[in-house]
């Protein structure tokens, strides 16, 4: 038990350092914040224009849409593939071998590193984006504490899933060396099927059905649907269960991939 606590302590320290590491790039973050806000304006005004042109009833109100995109921009940096370059780089230049001389577990190490990065962006990018947006738009805030709690849990799971996906994708560097191709494809698939571009609620039914079978809704669609109160009661539990399952899937898959990558490295010398 004590050893488990100590292990937890080590990885907690890694997450904290990862947070600190990001602190070094404060100006970059400020620039990013501006970009986020600019994109938010574009997205919101496009949707306002659409809504004004349409007379049909929509599954999401305009206030919902605005809130949805504010949340999207606020959590942009928590999505997969923003971090993790380091993983691909250390594999590519071989310094990953050097890390084998340290008594740590790599997947856990990279996982907490990603989480530390995500929490930095949650507070330093997400929160400011959210607060500034409040000055310009009406952003709805859920009134029920249970909804807020469910949203918080779902958001944490989204971050875990994002980290697990990032590690899985970048560990393909063991075989491909250049991950630009695969991460490019993954980025477009993730952006689309998470509901980041167009909320899944607005999709045609058949496409939304496909999205339901894919993991990526767990990154955006599930937590924000909970936030907007579009899911209730048992639906919330099912959605969170789905997120957890996909999260475990990516962690397991990533672990298999990594251990195969490492055994290839130690036998073939990379």
């Amino acid at each position: 038990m004590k050893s488990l606590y100590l292990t937890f302590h080590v990885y907690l320290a890694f997450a904290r350092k990862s947070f600190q590491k990001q602190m070094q790039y404060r100006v970059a973050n400020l620039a990013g914040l501006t970009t986020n806000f600019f994109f938010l304006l574009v997205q919101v005004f496009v949707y306002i224009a659409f809504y004004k042109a349409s007379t049909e009833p929509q599954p999401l109100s305009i206030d919902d849409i605005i809130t949805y995109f504010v949340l999207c921009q606020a959590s942009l940096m928590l999505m997969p593939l923003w971090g993790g370059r380091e993983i691909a780089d250390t594999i590519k230049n071989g310094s990953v071998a050097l890390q084998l001389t340290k008594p740590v577990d790599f997947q856990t190490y990279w996982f907490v590193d990603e989480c530390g990065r995500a929490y930095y962006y949650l507070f330093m990018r997400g929160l400011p984006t959210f607060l500034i947006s409040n000055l310009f738009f009406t952003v709805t805030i859920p009134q029920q504490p249970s909804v807020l709690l469910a949203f918080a849990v779902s958001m944490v799971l989204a971050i875990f899933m994002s980290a697990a996906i990032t590690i899985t994708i970048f560990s393909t560097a063991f075989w491909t060396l250049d991950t630009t191709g695969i991460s490019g494809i993954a980025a477009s698939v993730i952006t689309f099927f998470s509901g980041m571009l167009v909320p899944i609620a607005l999709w045609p039914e058949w496409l939304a059905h496909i999205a339901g079978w894919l993991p990526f809704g767990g990154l955006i669609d599930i937590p924000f649907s909970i936030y907007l109160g579009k899911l209730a009661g048992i639906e919330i539990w099912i959605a969170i269960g789905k997120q957890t399952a996909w999260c475990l899937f990516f962690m397991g898959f990533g672990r298999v991939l990594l251990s195969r990558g490492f055994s290839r490295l130690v036998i073939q010398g990379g």
Partner: protein
Amino acid sequence: MIEVNDLSKDFKVYHHRKGFFGSFVNLFSRKHRIVQAVDKVSFTVARGEIVGYLGPNGAGKSTTIKMLTGILVPSSGSVTVNGYIPHRQRKENAKHIGVVFGQRSHLWFDLPVQESFELLQRIYRIPEAEYRQNVEVFEELLNLGDFFRTPVRQLSLGQRMRADIAAALLHNPDVLFLDEPTIGLDVVAKARIRQFIQRINTERQVTVVLTTHDLDDVEKLCKRVILIDNARLRFDGELTALRRLLSTERLLSVDYAEAYPDVSIPNADIVYQEGARVQYRFSPEEISAADLIGTILKKFRIVDVSIQEPDIEDLIKTVYEDNLTLERKLAEPLSPDI
């Protein structure tokens, strides 16, 4: 402390076809050949030794170090370090060794040195008192104080190297592997690092395995050297023995009392002559230094005389260029020293 038996490592090297069509064919069929990076190398290192592991580029030095540190799995043969098999007990082994690769840093690029050290403290579970004490000692010996709070990416090469070596020793490892620790450093930085290694070795009985191309490192630090070339072990023994084995020629410099017109001596060649100063080359097998000086004294009056040993750089060059010489010599018994 370290036992290596018939250790071998082969790599598959893929044959890449040239040109556009060739790279297309590469996708479907790849030919490879087996390259032996290390071939049946055996040696043991006792606790507290400093061993220089030398060889030209591509000889198999780094591959051996990687097998000793658990980064590579041997193709055949056995390794134990501290009683652990590095590639099977990677994490256990890692707790008891320190590793420094001169070309790469172990530290976190974006973090200050101090933060990196604190992370290492957590990773290796170093007790607070031990950690404090080590940091204090290393700070003083390596002058880390000036840049202890600077992010690693802003450090000079010399500073980074010092930080890296201290980082590798924080958890009081029993064995320290240094792969080219002085590469690219200036003379002062090199001297400081050598002094530090020496001190750690004597005070803490840390076993050190050092690979380097800098022969000053070897002369200053290693009593024992292991030479490897073309994946095979060529020599394992005391540095002085290696020198004796290979020193076919020595230099004798003489300052005469006056500039004699003819200073030729049998069995010795004049390398240069400048006024009263003359340098001879001689082979100890033909004439001993004592006999040579005796002959000179009978003929001339001298002011000063000195004998120069060949430096190991030359010795090792001989070994690299002419393996046969060494093998032939190794077969013969050692000739008594003069």
